[in-house]
Every structure is written in structure tokens, then in C-alpha cells.
């Protein structure tokens, strides 16, 4: 911690806490809008989740989800909201690197960078297989 710059764990954490809350509220709103569109169009169809088919490929990847959401499809909008939700902790980790760097803590900036790499691999890299 470096008192000269005034960046302490607590201050960084307060900012991050608010960032997380904003991310959750935003994603819940997007999911809610998607829910209205989805239920208005498909509410009367039978619901069946007994057999696992897996999602269609457009709902599995970031580009497809964004495409479907902008085409105003209910399921696409919901999935975009869920994607925003998954991105919230990723943003938190990214911001923490920045915070540790400001505090001059190289070891923890490094640890956090490892965590970020794992998260990005899961979100982006695992789709390459």
C-alpha cells in the first residue's frame, strides 16, 4: 500500500463493489427485457427440458448472442444479459490488477493477472475446441 497516492485496498474494493452491483443490475434489466419479449412470443408453447439437446450454436458464442440480441429475439436478449453477468466478475478481476498496480504491489498484480488469464481462456479460448 502506498499512502502517497491514497490508493488503499479498501478504496479500490469500494469502487469494485459498486462496479459489481451496477453489472448485476444492468444484466438483470437486460434479462428482464428479454423475458418479456420471449414470454410474449413463446409463452403458450409447451415447456420441455427433460432431454438435453444443447443450445443452438448462435446462443453459445459471443458474436452469435450479440447478433440474436440485436435481431430482437427474446432468447438472444436474455443470453446477452447472462453474458453481461458472467463478464461482471471478469471485469472485477481486471480492475483489481489495476488496483494492485496503483498500490505498487507487483506480486498481487501478477496473481490477479493469472486469474484473469484463466477466466478469459474459459470465456473465449474454450470455444476453439
Amino acid at each position: 500500500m502506498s499512502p502517497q497516492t491514497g490508493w488503499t485496498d479498501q478504496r479500490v474494493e469500494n469502487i469494485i463493489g459498486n462496479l459489481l452491483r451496477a453489472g448485476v443490475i444492468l444484466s438483470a434489466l437486460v434479462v428482464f427485457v428479454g423475458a418479456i419479449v420471449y414470454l410474449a412470443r413463446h409463452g403458450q408453447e409447451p415447456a420441455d427440458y427433460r432431454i438435453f439437446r444443447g443450445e443452438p450454436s448462435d446462443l453459445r458464442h459471443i458474436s452469435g448472442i450479440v447478433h440474436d440480441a440485436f435481431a430482437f429475439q427474446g432468447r438472444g436478449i436474455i443470453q446477452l444479459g447472462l453474458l453481461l453477468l458472467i463478464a461482471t466478475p471478469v471485469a472485477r478481476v481486471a480492475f483489481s490488477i489495476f488496483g494492485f498496480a496503483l498500490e505498487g504491489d507487483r506480486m498481487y498484480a501478477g496473481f490477479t493477472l493469472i486469474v484473469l488469464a484463466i477466466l478469459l481462456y474459459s470465456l473465449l479460448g474454450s470455444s476453439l475446441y
Partner: protein
Amino acid sequence: MNVLEFTALVWAGSVIAGLLGSLTGLGGGVVLVPLLTLFFKVDIRYAVGASLVSVIATSSGAAAAYVKEGFSNIRIGMFLEIATTVGALLGAFLATRVSGSAIATIFGFVLLYSAYLAGRPRVRHAFDDVPDPLATRLKINGSFPEAEGVRHYCVHRVPLGFSLMFGAGALSGLLGIGSGAVKVLAMDQAMRIPFKVSTTTSNFMIGVTAAASAGIYLNRGYIDPGLSMPVMLGVLSGSLVGTRILVKAETKWLRLVFSAIILLLGAQMLYNGLAGRI
């Protein structure tokens, strides 16, 4: 059942799961997956995907409140997240390889163990102030505010805690739960971190751990928007209400009721998993 009725019922069930989860501190995931698979006959892979999404929502939603209290230790959390996220990746890959029955069987065992942990009185351990050299080098010894003033604590047995966290991450990725109980166990019992610090730090780690497996779930088509929508919105509203009334509620009998429910669900999951019905 049409989509509208299904959505409404799943939403209501998720509100209750979120409420119970936050009141007891065990999280909603442990009851959600059995609820979806046993009562709504949802395939366990969709159930696990929806549950994982709701775990991220509750963890991130509660983070702001916990941070202000000043209990959570972000260095401990960030260091141990290296273990939980690697574990979560492994768990999520494993989930795509094994059968639904196998996942249900493991889930059953975890539920039975959680019920045992929740029903058992917490073992209080004495704090000593002899610093552990590894913990000192990692700068994870900390302090937190108490009524009598600031209390300092030393962290112990870092390698054991780190290994347990890897296991917690793998369970989280395999079963779509936050596995907060295992995380608290690792910090509170193994690493001798004060209970309040353990629970709040665990909460902040849960979201990051879950995000590590969520990417793989999404890419494999486990996250269904129609199912995840009522689950996420329900658990989120339930847990928000739960954290508001937490201060007033008498949690002792609530924990007992909740562990009885988990025990029953665990037996059901185990039976159905072993019988190959899930």
C-alpha cells in the same frame, strides 16, 4: 405445462431457494439443482448451467454490501482464486465428459456432507499470533474491525488451504454450485482465518470461481436462456430480500430446517443418480 406457467413456477421456487440460501449462508445452488431435476424434471446439465448463472448473480450482488463492512481479505481471496479457477475449469471439462447420473450421484454425496456441516455446531479454534512464514511472504495476514477495536489475525497452513480450494473449484464447476461451504471450511478450519473474514471472502470468491466454469458451460450449450432467466431473476430477488432480513432473523433453527431439507434432497439425488433415473 406451457412456457408461461413453467417460468412462473421456476421463478417462485428460485425465490425461495435464494431466500433460504442467503439466510443460512449456504447459497441457493445446493437446493436449486435438486429442485429443477427432481420436481421440474429438467435435465441435470441445463439445471447445473442455470444454477451456476444464479450463483454469479448472488455473489456479485452481495459484494458491495460485504466490502463496506471491511471483513473480507482481498489478498487471501485473490491468491486462493488461482486454485479455485483452475479447479473450476477442470470441473467444467469433467462435467462435459461424465453422464448425468454420475453428476447426480456426486451431487447427492455433496448435499449429504453439506447437511452434516450445516447441522454440526461450529468448532471454534483458538487464535495464536505466531506468523506463518509463507503467509507473511504472501502478505495475507490481516485485521478486521470489532467492537473492542481492530483485531489482527495470522493465516496458517497455506498449502492445505490452497489444495482444498482447488477441490472447491472443481466441485463448483462440476455441479454448478458456489461451494461456499467447502471454501469456508478451507479458510476457517484449515487456514485458521476468523469466521467472519472466511464467509465474506468466500462470497467474493464464489462469483469469480463460477465465472471460470460459466464460459465453458456457455460454449457447450448448457446455459439455456428460457430456464436461466426465471432462475437468475428469482434467486437474485430472494437473496436480496434475505440479506435485508438477515440481521433480525433467528438463524439457528433455520439452519436446522435447511440442513434437514438438504439431507432429504441429497438422499433423493443419490437414489436417482445411482438408479440411473437422472
